[in-house]
């Protein structure tokens, strides 16, 4: 009964999402201009490579500009190379990209009010977990160290003796 109900639920969910097939089209056009990007200055080349690694391809969202083969990634690589060749530093190039595409283009999100939770969250969770652990260990060690000999009252002892005698008979 429940499994059938779950099946319907899952199916309706899939159907619902399958209606969303027409969406924004990723820019995947192949570009004719495939000239390699060449630097004469090694420092610039290093800067370019670092940037292409730290910037995200927006079409294939889990790839950086270096890894991606999409048309947009190609164009953005050319743009990064152009800016680096102009002598712009890494921050200037990143600012240029963020002004157009937003923070999302950065693999490492910037530290600002919207992202505080993102940056601090894991540490807060870790501290909570550690506190819980310490609390738990203390509670247990307290239970283990309790003086068990003092617990029985005179009346209890007599009662116990009677029981033991009865058993040993």
């Amino acid at each position, binding site marked *: 009964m429940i499994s059938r109900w779950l099946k319907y639920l899952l199916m309706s969910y899939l159907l619902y999402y399958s209606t969303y097939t*027409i*969406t*924004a*089209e*990723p*820019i995947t*056009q192949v*570009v004719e201009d495939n000239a390699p990007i060449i630097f004469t200055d090694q420092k610039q080349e290093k800067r370019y490579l670092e940037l292409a690694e730290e910037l995200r391809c*927006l*079409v294939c*969202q889990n790839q950086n500009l270096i890894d991606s083969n999409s*048309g*947009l990634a190609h*164009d*953005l690589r050319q*743009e990064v190379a152009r800016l680096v060749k102009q002598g712009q530093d890494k921050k200037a190039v990143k600012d240029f990209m*963020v*002004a*157009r*595409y*937003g*923070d*999302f283009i950065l693999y490492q999100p910037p530290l600002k009010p919207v992202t505080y939770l993102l940056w601090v969250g894991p540490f807060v969770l870790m501290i909570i977990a550690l506190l819980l652990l310490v609390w738990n260990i203390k509670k247990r060690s307290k239970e283990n160290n309790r003086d068990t000999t003092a617990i029985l009252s005179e009346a209890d002892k007599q009662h116990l003796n009677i029981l033991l005698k009865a058993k040993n008979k």
Partner: protein
Amino acid sequence: MKMVYFIPMGIFIALSALLLFGLSNDPRRVPSPLINKPVPTFSLSTVEDQNKIFSSKELTGQVALVNIWASWCRSCRAEHAILERLAGKGIPIYGINYKDNLADAKNWLQRYGNPYRKSAYDVQGKIGIEWGAYGTPETFIIDTQGIIRYKHIGPISKEDMDNIILPVIARLRTL
């Protein structure tokens, strides 16, 4: 039963709710930093006539749509009828023809109709980058001051037109 035993269940339900909420989000919809900023400047020849210039300066003085399109983009074909309807309502629509072949773009307009007042021919995609384009079609709503007020990513459906595009245009016109 101790209340403590409900804590893992509570955590599980909260996590499920969070993940379910995540499913309804579209990761392709990246918020644009261009909202409430002036339109990026450009000056390009038009698709219709290579001798004519379309400059971003023309995008002030009226509430208008700027639509980034291409003949190779199937989703642009899907929203084309909606753009025609918006143009029919007298809403000025300007196009940025993105990384296209000029002959293909001209053919496309001839075949399906041209809802655009003008289309800038951005063959290298440089202007697309200026506008932060990453998936065609993309549609921007510009106010009378030439400030970008809204960005729609992907094709505009009839619901989008009725529930978002037209109300936003109406609101901007009253400002």
